[in-house]
């Protein structure tokens, strides 16, 4: 019940990671079922419920909340604020999100089980005739509550960025992570309410209102869903572009290359990604495929700018391959796979070939797992010392990075082959003999990822007890969060260094001054001024 933004950030992040582990466990059960043909572990309906809860948990309960949790902790620190705007609003958002998650999962306790139509809730598969039951209604209530809660937390963050920047922290002096939150929150503000309204109406439809059963209703619902469903991928991606950019700069000991152009490209990226939702409807032939193909393909421009900035930051830098940097590089490489295959599915003729196949599953897992999860772990390893005061173990961290990287390649590359061969997604069973090996390899990859998660949990528990004490700035950081103690005090800062750029601590180093010495000097001066009082 604390109104400290750091506590709100931590509880949101930890809860989201808890849901991530739950959703991952579900994925492992699904991969066990898919390893060989026939039904071994469960019936089809149970499988349908599991893949629905896997996708729903990962999107609605993990990916977006974990981003908001991390941002709630670090954005005020990065802009030199002593707190956040509307902390109670944000805290209420956490509690509603938690309630939504529990309601969503409580569907398993009902007689008919939970929703079984996928996280997309396509209509009329999601109407009360095709999927009746209280558990399904719980799913809708849970999604609506969790999504509304995310709007609340995002709006508090935006207000913080607008109103609470420290003196000297102009907009273009904000660090990349904080900047990346701006287009992210814009997308949350415009896209998430559309889902809340769409799914609320669908809930009413299921309970007798017949809103989407009218002619054209299905298409309307699809527009409403995908207007949320595509931008949400970028909502969970952009902040990690920001975090990874900062990590690359810190571990290359260089300023981030082209901050301003990257900021502009992020805004363009966000605008384009809010304009591509119709590519999910290519095969329906109810939208203008040429327009959505144009917007989808145009995404390579801002994405290319960001990749160029990452590489240009590293060139000529003194690179330290510590665990956060390993995860950051994994993020860059694996998201590239997801991004490049996105060009395939952004092209209508190719999309017709791979639509509703495992190719699409592989594509979005490289964007979401390769991009989001790798970026998230980069951020966790980077900022864990700031939050807890202790460093995560380097050896275990490297093991986790390697296992996750190998696991991600083993799990998802075979899915490209399976999809190209025509294996449909969302099926509990398959029968073609030549799909056997890729399915076995994919399952092995999934379990390797599971092993990596065990390594992570062990590392966290071990580091919390006996981890090396971090000190205020273990990485020679560049931004303001490293100018305070680890963990920071209630009011975040006792003194602030002069802010002349996006990386005040790096600016001091460039002037030949050690940031911690400068901060100590400022503290001493402040004490001297206050002593007579």
């Amino acid at each position, binding site marked *: 019940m604390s109104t400290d933004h750091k506590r709100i950030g931590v509880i949101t992040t930890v809860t989201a990671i808890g849901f991530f582990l739950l959703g991952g466990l579900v994925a492992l059960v699904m991969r066990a079922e898919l390893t060989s043909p026939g039904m071994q572990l469960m019936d089809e309906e149970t499988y349908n419920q599991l893949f629905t809860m896997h996708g729903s948990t990962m999107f609605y309960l993990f990916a977006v909340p974990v981003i908001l949790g991390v941002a709630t902790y670090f954005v005020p620190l990065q802009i030199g604020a002593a707190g956040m705007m509307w902390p*109670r609003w944000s805290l209420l958002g956490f509690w509603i999100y938690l309630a939504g998650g529990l309601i969503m999962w409580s569907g398993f306790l009902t007689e008919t089980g939970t929703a079984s139509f996928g996280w997309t809730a396509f209509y009329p598969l999601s109407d009360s005739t095709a999927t009746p039951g209280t558990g399904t209604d719980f799913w809708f209530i849970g999604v609506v509550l969790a999504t509304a809660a995310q709007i609340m937390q995002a709006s508090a963050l935006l207000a913080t960025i607008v109103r609470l920047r420290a003196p000297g922290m102009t907009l273009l002096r904000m660090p990349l992570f904080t900047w990346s939150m701006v287009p992210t929150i814009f997308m949350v503000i415009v896209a998430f309410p559309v889902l809340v309204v769409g799914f609320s109406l669908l809930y009413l439809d299921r309970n007798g209102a017949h809103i989407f059963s009218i002619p054209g209703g299905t298409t309307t619902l699809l527009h409403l869903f995908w207007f949320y469903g595509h931008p949400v991928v970028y909502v969970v991606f952009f902040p990690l572009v920001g975090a990874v950019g900062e990590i690359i700069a810190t571990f290359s000991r260089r300023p981030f290359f082209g901050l301003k152009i990257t900021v502009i490209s992020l805004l363009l990226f966000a605008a384009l990604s809010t304009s591509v939702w119709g590519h999910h409807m290519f095969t329906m032939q109810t939208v203008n495929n040429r327009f959505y193909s144009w917007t989808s393909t145009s995404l390579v421009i801002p994405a290319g700018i960001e990749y160029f900035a990452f590489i240009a930051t590293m060139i000529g830098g003194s690179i330290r391959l510590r665990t956060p940097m390993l995860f950051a590089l994994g993020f860059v490489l694996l998201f590239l796979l997801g991004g490049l295959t996105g060009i395939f599915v952004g092209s209508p003729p190719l999309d017709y070939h791979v639509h509703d196949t495992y190719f699409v599953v592989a594509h979005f897992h490289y964007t979401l797992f390769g991009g989001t999860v790798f970026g998230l772990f980069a951020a966790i390893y980077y900022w864990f010392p700031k939050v807890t005061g202790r460093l995560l173990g380097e050896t275990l961290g490297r093991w986790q990075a390697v296992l996750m990287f190998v696991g991600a390649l083993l799990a998802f590359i075979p899915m490209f082959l399976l999809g190209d061969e025509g294996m449909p997604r969302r099926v509990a069973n398959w029968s073609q003999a030549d799909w056997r090996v890729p399915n076995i390899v994919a399952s092995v990859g999934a379990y390797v990822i599971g092993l990596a998660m065990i390594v992570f949990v062990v590392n966290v528990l071990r580091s919390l007890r006996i981890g090396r004490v971090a000190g205020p700035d273990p990485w020679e950081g560049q931004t303001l969060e490293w100018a305070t103690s680890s963990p920071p005090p209630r009011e975040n800062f006792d003194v602030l260094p002069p802010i002349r750029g996006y990386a005040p601590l790096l600016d001091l180093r460039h002037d030949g001054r050690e940031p911690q010495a400068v901060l100590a000097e400022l503290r001493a001066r402040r004490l001297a001024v206050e002593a007579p009082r």
Partner: protein
Amino acid sequence: VRWPFVFWGALMAVIGAVGVIAFGFSDAEEPALFGGTVATMMILGGVVWMRRYDRVDEEYLRAHPDISPPIPWLGVSIGLLGYSLEVGWWLSLIAGGMIVAGLAGLVRERRAARAALRRGIAQEAWEGVRPLEPKGSDPS
């Protein structure tokens, strides 16, 4: 601060306009969603400008309590209200009552915060980051 709002809204307007003029939308939902997005961003930009939010609030001072028990109470109540849609009206009534109690707690908290501000307690919380004396007060 308003330029990101306006810039992003303008970008969405341009992309939407290209869709309408150069490609043509087949469904009414598409221009509606584009239009809604542009309008939202322009309104937000306007609010930021009109309320002078484009200046950093260096005097920001709020007596936020360190803990806020009504908030988890409200969160649980809203969750129960959602649950009650399936469970029954009896739970809606309980949840509704809990929400009223939670809101009352928030009002009480707000009054206490204002009183704390008047006593200058909030300023002490900002010691070291903000001046100890409220504007216009006599330091002696």
